[in-house]
């Protein structure tokens, strides 16, 4: 079920601009198995890379003996850190200006770390080679607990880093500490909750991989790889491998169809670099495709924030201040993919949808013997952690002052008149109408009836809970004054070319991984140019042809590249207007624009179509005009966008087993003006399911020796259709005042908003027993422990 959106289409169904639920142009090939993913690529003479990985979390490498591996039929070479050291390629920078090993020369820092690369003529021979490499380790005691990592007697893990005297990576803070503390000192009510948003892992259907093809004659490198940011990767390759002769004009990165990215395909993983190094050394194409266990055990994780949060309020529950102290476990390297100036991402959005006087947030990041990270898993850089924290503790406050959690939220919402709103932690929220989303959500789910039902059930001893979450997102990174990655500003780009017959190709600096860019972008161009979306071919991902951009993550594609598409299309429309005036022999100011057609004011039968103008751009130009119909725009957004929503969830708890059933889940989102309602709904559905995962199932855990306890889908529990409730979605529309289409980006709202809604529902079911918090994932055994402790387990 889906409630209606309010921005209706302006264009005809034929043009299919904004507001039309156009079927996705990419789906025929995906649904017929005709997508072209990394592993579909083969080249003549292609070799295979497979990787030897560390069985221990921390230790010295005493010896690597490859002799038996080299005897395996088909094995050609075994690459170690020492081999790469000869080229100074054994370490690489992370996007956060930390460093990470490609292959170790002497020490392994986490279980499953890459130790050696085996190159062979087939995937099978490579795997046999891996099994035959003998590595001798001298294990050391790992640091697994991030709190222990900061204790004075903890061994310093990054002895490779000059001046590193402990395991702290950085300290970050935002807000006025003193002013915040003052409010806490005098506040009527203070609530506090410690919570962990646990380490989780992206579980894209397609794992990571690449096919590196170095042409030794021309010094040209082509890398087909699973990357969300091909242009940035090309630049990084040029920067880190310039000294071995790779030059940016001779590097081509191609990101073909990508089977899900979710942030996990932003970083550069050692496997890519080993494959490239092997191709350069051997002069042959080398393919590397990681398997599921490698993906889960070695690639960048997400989240892992330990938060200690407090709210100061007056006795009526009016929030006055927020204070959060956070410990961030980054594994052995800070391998996030966040904007350079934001080590804690956009965590300072933690004040959320609520107006308050002050806030102060701090994060300390530490090294541990775990895989490096963390990526922004379907989230605009730590927004998930921030929202979980705020939306959980707001419920604690409601509980404390004896108010309904929805009411308490409403009483604290930033009022609609207050936008643009300056948050205490420095954001300028562009627009919002939180009450509208709350009203719609309550109405859709029948909130008051549910509360009545809950009261009756409590009488009978049944456990049912209702959870509310009113989140505010911050996305579309970002304005160049604040946002860059490795110095490169976080603009994005579009290049639109209309052919003589009125058909177009539009290329973007982003890269779809399943979001439907080929459709959404075509609709954006259609909206602005009046060409049918069906006639707009969208291309991304090839650095040789697409304009430079920073890629797709953090819900930034529509806010940045989508806006660039609008601007480029508007340039073309302006040019077309001049051509139309020429064709109709009138002045430009005498023309009227209806999507697809210029007509003479007052003489509507005198008109030309956009297609006529395109043809004329190649055949019949006004004098002095540059031929062709092509425009480019690099869009530097003036601000971020701030989508929001209210989610309400109803759960039932089995008192025998502790199982939680999500009975209903209503998600009302406001992502501004909607381009393709069907795609937006799909994004919400997918995001909600990826929020359900960490709320109830997913967690990457380690034992005290650093062994990964969830290294396969047997224990890393990703929800399936069976676990997924029937999502009910609705929309309010509060356009972004600064985005040229009034759109805001929607890819991640649901992942961010769902976990606290579910957690709040479970806590709500148990609130009358005195429960104020449950750590996620809320596993049945965890719930059962609480039921037993409270004496209600049966």
């Amino acid at each position: 079920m889906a409630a209606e959106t309010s921005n209706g289409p302006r264009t005809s169904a034929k043009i299919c601009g904004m507001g039309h639920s156009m079927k996705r142009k990419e789906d025929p090939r995906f649904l017929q198995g005709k997508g072209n993913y990394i592993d579909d690529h083969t080249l003549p003479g292609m070799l295979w890379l497979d990787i030897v990985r560390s069985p221990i979390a921390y230790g010295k490498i005493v010896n690597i003996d490859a002799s038996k591996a080299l005897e395996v039929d088909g094995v050609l070479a075994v690459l170690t850190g020492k081999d790469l050291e000869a080229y100074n390629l054994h370490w690489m920078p992370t996007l956060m200006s930390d460093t990470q090993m490609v292959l170790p020369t002497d020490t392994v820092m986490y279980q499953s770390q890459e130790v050696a690369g085996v190159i062979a003529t087939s995937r099978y021979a490579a795997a046999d080679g891996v099994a035959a490499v003998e590595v001798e380790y001298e294990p050391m005691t790992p640091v697994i607990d991030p709190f222990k990592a900061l204790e004075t007697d903890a061994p310093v893990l990054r002895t490779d880093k000059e001046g590193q005297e402990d395991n702290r990576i950085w300290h970050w803070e935002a807000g006025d500490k003193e002013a915040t503390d003052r409010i806490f000192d005098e506040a009527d009510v203070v609530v506090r909750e410690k919570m962990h948003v646990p380490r989780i892992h992206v579980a894209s259907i397609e794992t990571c991989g690449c096919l590196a093809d170095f042409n030794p004659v021309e010094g040209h490198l082509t890398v087909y790889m699973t990357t969300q940011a091909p242009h940035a990767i090309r630049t990084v390759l040029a920067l880190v491998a310039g000294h071995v002769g790779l030059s940016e004009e001779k590097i081509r990165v191609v990101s073909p169809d990508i089977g899900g990215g979710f942030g996990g395909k932003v970083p550069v993983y050692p496997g890519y670099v080993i494959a490239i190094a092997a191709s350069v050394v051997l002069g042959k194409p080398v393919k590397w495709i990681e398997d599921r266990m490698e993906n889960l055990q070695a690639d960048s994780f997400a989240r892992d924030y330990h938060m200690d949060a407090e709210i100061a309020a007056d006795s009526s529950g009016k929030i006055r201040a927020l204070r959060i102290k956070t410990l961030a476990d980054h594994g052995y390297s800070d391998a996030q993919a966040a904007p350079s100036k934001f080590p804690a991402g956009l965590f300072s959005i933690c004040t959320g949808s609520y107006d308050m006087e002050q806030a102060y947030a701090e994060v300390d990041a530490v090294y541990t013997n775990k895989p490096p990270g963390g990526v922004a898993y379907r989230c605009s850089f730590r927004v998930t952690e921030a929202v979980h924290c705020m939306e959980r503790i707001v419920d604690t406050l409601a509980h404390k002052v004896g108010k309904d959690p929805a009411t308490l939220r409403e009483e604290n919402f930033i009022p609609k008149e207050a936008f643009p709103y300056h948050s205490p932690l420095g954001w300028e929220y562009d627009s919002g109408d939180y009450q509208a989303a709350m009203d719609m959500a309550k109405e859709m789910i029948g909130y008051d009836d549910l509360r009545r039902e809950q009261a009756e059930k409590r009488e009978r001893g049944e456990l049912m809970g209702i959870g509310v979450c009113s989140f505010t997102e911050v996305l579309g990174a970002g304005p160049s004054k604040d946002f860059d990655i490795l110095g490169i500003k976080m603009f994005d780009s579009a290049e639109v070319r209309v052919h003589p017959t009125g058909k177009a190709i539009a290329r973007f600096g982003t890269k779809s991984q399943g979001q439907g860019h080929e459709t959404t972008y075509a609709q954006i161009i259609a909206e602005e140019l009046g060409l049918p979306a069906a006639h707009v071919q969208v291309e991304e991902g090839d650095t040789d042809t697409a304009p430079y951009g920073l890629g797709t993550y953090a819900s930034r594609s529509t806010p940045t590249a989508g806006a660039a598409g609008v601007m480029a299309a508007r340039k073309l429309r302006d040019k077309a207007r001049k051509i139309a005036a020429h064709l109709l022999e009138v002045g430009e100011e005498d023309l009227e624009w209806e999507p697809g057609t210029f007509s003479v004011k007052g003489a509507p039968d005198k008109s030309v179509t956009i297609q006529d103008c395109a043809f004329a751009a190649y055949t019949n130009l006004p004098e002095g005009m540059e031929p062709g119909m092509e425009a480019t725009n690099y869009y530097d957004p003036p601000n971020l966008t701030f989508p929001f929503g209210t989610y309400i969830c109803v759960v039932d708890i089995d008192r025998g087993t502790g199982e939680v059933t999500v009975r209903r889940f209503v998600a009302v989102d406001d992502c501004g003006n909607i381009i393709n309602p069907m795609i937006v709904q799909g994004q919400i559905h997918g995001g909600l399911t990826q929020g359900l995962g960490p709320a109830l199932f997913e967690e990457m855990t380690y034992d005290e020796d650093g062994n990964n306890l969830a290294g396969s889908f047997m224990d890393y529990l990703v929800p399936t259709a069976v676990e997924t409730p029937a999502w009910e979605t609705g929309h309010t529309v509060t356009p972004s005042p600064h985005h040229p289409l009034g759109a805001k980006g929607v890819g991640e709202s649901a992942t961010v908003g769902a976990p606290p809604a579910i957690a709040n529902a479970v806590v709500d079911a148990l609130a009358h027993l005195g429960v104020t918090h449950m750590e996620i994932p809320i596993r049945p055994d965890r719930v059962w422990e609480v039921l037993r402790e409270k004496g209600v387990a049966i």
Partner: protein
Amino acid sequence: MIPPQFDYHAPGSLEEALGLLGSLDDAKVMSGGQSLLPMLKLRLATPANIVDIGRIPGLDSIGEEGGYLRIGALVTETALEENATVAARYPILLDTAKVIADPLVRNRATICGNVAHGDPANDHPATMLALRAQMVATGPDGERTIGVDDFFHGLFMTALAEGEILTEIRIPAPGGVGGGGADGAHHGGAYLKLERKVGDYAVAGVAVQLALGDDGKVTQAGVGLTNLGMAPIRASAAEEVLTGARLVERGGLRGAFSKVRDAIARAPDADEVIAAAAQAAADATDPVADRRGSVEYKRNMARVLTGRAIAKALARAGG
């Protein structure tokens, strides 16, 4: 996820298969491959030879014959799910098949393979314990029948000798057609599994099969437990608690297998008996703490599920 090298053999007859198993070094039988292939890919099993019995004709039959439900070596979970006799007369088997893995796996996985694998996390062993099944093993010297209680020896260990193939599982048929057995019994069974998500191995699984007389007294009880110890467990003490107890009011049972499914009238102290049996089942477990939960949790889940499975079995016996 890449298996090591092995030689693959696809015999066309049982004799040929037994011959290969007798002559080849380090050979392993493969039926559905749904446990064996993952082990190969993880290089947890590295047999030199694989003898795929999947193409041998005649091993895929399922049906009642001579007082038994006979399940051939190549009967898949899907075939079991789609079998009308199973649906009508052995709902416990249908319960079990439905909670194993996913439809893709079930299309290939066999019941015999599930049992032969000797994995206490597999679901069919508990059901077979509750149903008091017999395992027919065929080796170079012919057939022998092994009672289910003698079959499971420990983690991945069974009574099957090297070179033997589990060719059939025989389950005693509930006596008589259309209702009470020779002894006038009413039969009902159920398998309940607590899993973290669909397709997961059990946190705890409980199989209960009951026979009741017209007087509402239990004449035979079978209780088997999944993933609660190093081998599938028969909860004998729970069976003893149930056997002879009156769970249903006299006359409270209609003809078994009738379509009417309303609540049956429980005997006055039935709830206590069921609770005692459930506790006895919990006491029979020896679980380990892992990501599925603590020892405490698993024991309690054995208790909770046993109680619920008995109730479901009763409801089925009652009509």
